[in-house]
């Protein structure tokens, strides 16, 4: 295992990094279990840290990321194993949710940037307004109202723009997609517990809808037939009354007659 050449040359890079990391671990443990060698110090701890960073980087993590720097979760998993096996579909759902989370984070960061720009413009506009009107600075209420007016103006200018509309729509569309994926997981969970699922209820509603529509059509047909019958009955007859066909009742001949 400590031989880093065990990984196939065409194997994914993280496998080689894994081997290197395990090898570094073994060396470190050997050194630590041997006080004489440990006292010697040297390059082992540094090699250990280096192999750890390399492995982390191969797995998509960012061990050198500065504090507060955003990490992109989908990148961590995109470089991992492909979704395979018994739970493949759930892995795919999880991966898509992570991907959507990353997309949302990026677009939301842009939204925050827009908001900061709007705040900046509003602040500048308020300053300009205050420099022209001394009474504003004399009253906290007046300066506050001026700030609100300027903020709404700056916001409206941005909000009416195409980039802002696209940004809001993207955030909404990503969340919609996320909700769809979450729904798939909930469906699976409901099946496991034998709970009624949304799909089941939807199917029932559809059936009720079809039945109601059929009932309404049948009821309309009956109604129109009744109306037609009533109209026909109410029609004044112009010609002589037609005699109904005389019914001839046949009576069975009595025996002996």
């Amino acid at each position: 295992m400590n031989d880093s050449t065990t990984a196939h040359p065409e194997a994914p890079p993280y496998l080689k990094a894994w081997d290197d990391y395990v090898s570094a671990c073994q060396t470190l443990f050997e050194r630590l279990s041997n006080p004489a060698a440990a006292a010697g110090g040297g390059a082992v701890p540094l090699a250990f840290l280096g192999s750890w960073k390399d492995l982390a980087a191969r797995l998509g993590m960012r061990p050198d990321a500065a504090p507060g720097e955003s990490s992109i979760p989908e990148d961590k998993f995109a470089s991992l194993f492909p979704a395979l096996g018994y739970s493949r579909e759930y892995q795919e759902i999880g991966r898509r949710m992570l991907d959507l989370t990353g997309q949302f984070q990026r677009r939301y960061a842009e939204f925050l940037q827009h908001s900061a720009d709007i705040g900046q413009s509003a602040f500048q506009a308020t300053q300009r307004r205050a420099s022209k009107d001394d009474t504003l600075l004399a009253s906290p209420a007046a300066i506050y109202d001026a700030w609100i007016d300027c903020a709404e103006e700056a916001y409206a200018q941005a909000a009416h723009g195409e980039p802002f509309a696209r940004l809001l729509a993207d955030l909404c569309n990503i969340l919609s997609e996320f909700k769809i994926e979450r729904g798939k997981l909930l469906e699976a969970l409901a099946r496991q517990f034998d709970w009624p699922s949304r799909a089941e209820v939807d199917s029932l509603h559809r059936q009720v809808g079809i039945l109601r529509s059929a009932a309404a059509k049948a009821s309309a047909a009956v109604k129109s037939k009744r109306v037609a019958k009533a109209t026909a009955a109410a029609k004044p007859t112009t010609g002589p009354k037609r005699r109904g066909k005389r019914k001839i009742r046949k009576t069975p001949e009595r025996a002996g007659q």
Partner: protein
Amino acid sequence: MRALREIGEVQVGLSEKTCVYAEDKIQLHHYVPLARSARVPPLLICYAMVNRPYMLDLQPDRSLIRELLSLGVDVYLLDWGYPDGADRFIPLTEYVCGYLGRCVEFILEQNAIDALNLLGVCQGGTMSLCYAALEPRHIANLITMVAPVDFKTPENLLSKWAQHIDVERLTQSGNVSGEFLNLVYLALMPFRLTQQKYVNLLQMEGDRAQLENFLRMEKWIFDSPDQPARAFREFIEWFFQENRLIRGELTLDDRQVLLKNVQCPVLNIYAAKDHLVPPSASIPLGVHVGSEDYESLQVDVGHIGMYVSGKARKTVPAAIARWLQERKP
């Protein structure tokens, strides 16, 4: 703050009424008259599905419905209710030609008349226009109030935002929540609606009546029903994204909805400072409607001010009653 806490639950929609027809989530209310009848056909108010209709009867001294009743108008109100998961597959056609249509037929039958007056408010105005275009014989006079007709005008921020929304995806996992709609409305004027109005609240200095007004409004603003998925998708796609109504390309109940078929007298009331339905979205009705008796009334208020502001209260109900009176059959 203590005064606010002491108020507790506020009451809304207090005018006396009876539910005369109900079907699924919808209810048709008939208001008890408050004055001698003006002898005009009954007025059916069709409100928007995206908000609750009690805004038209928020409190006794801020009630469009009450004002109309006191002017002798016989008022019915269609309340769409709170749609839930059972309604997610109901198409827009069913709301316009089905529920609204059956309410109209019920009132016609109950009053033994051939046509009634219809007042459509906001989205309900658009729906009323569609109905009037499809069933012109049932409508004596049509009034639209802050109703969008042209959905693609430069001032229409909601429409701009709606253009890139994938509504199919949005509604794929069910109804669109009222909370989502509330967020969208707040985002139209975020600084005023999430900050300034609460700061202004401090200036009320414990005035109970003012605080109650504020709370009633607050209750209404955040009382947005969930939107039935399919009807919502169709409304956004057909009206906001494709502007079908004004282009004469809308089909409901397998029939083309043509505004030129609206031949009855039309009164179009719109708000000059409307941030939800800008005047430019309402004004074009006059060009497209088929009626030769068309009038418009601009009120110098905002969207919500149209229902509750003192300015609107002084002009709108009286204008409606007078306009109806002049067109009495």
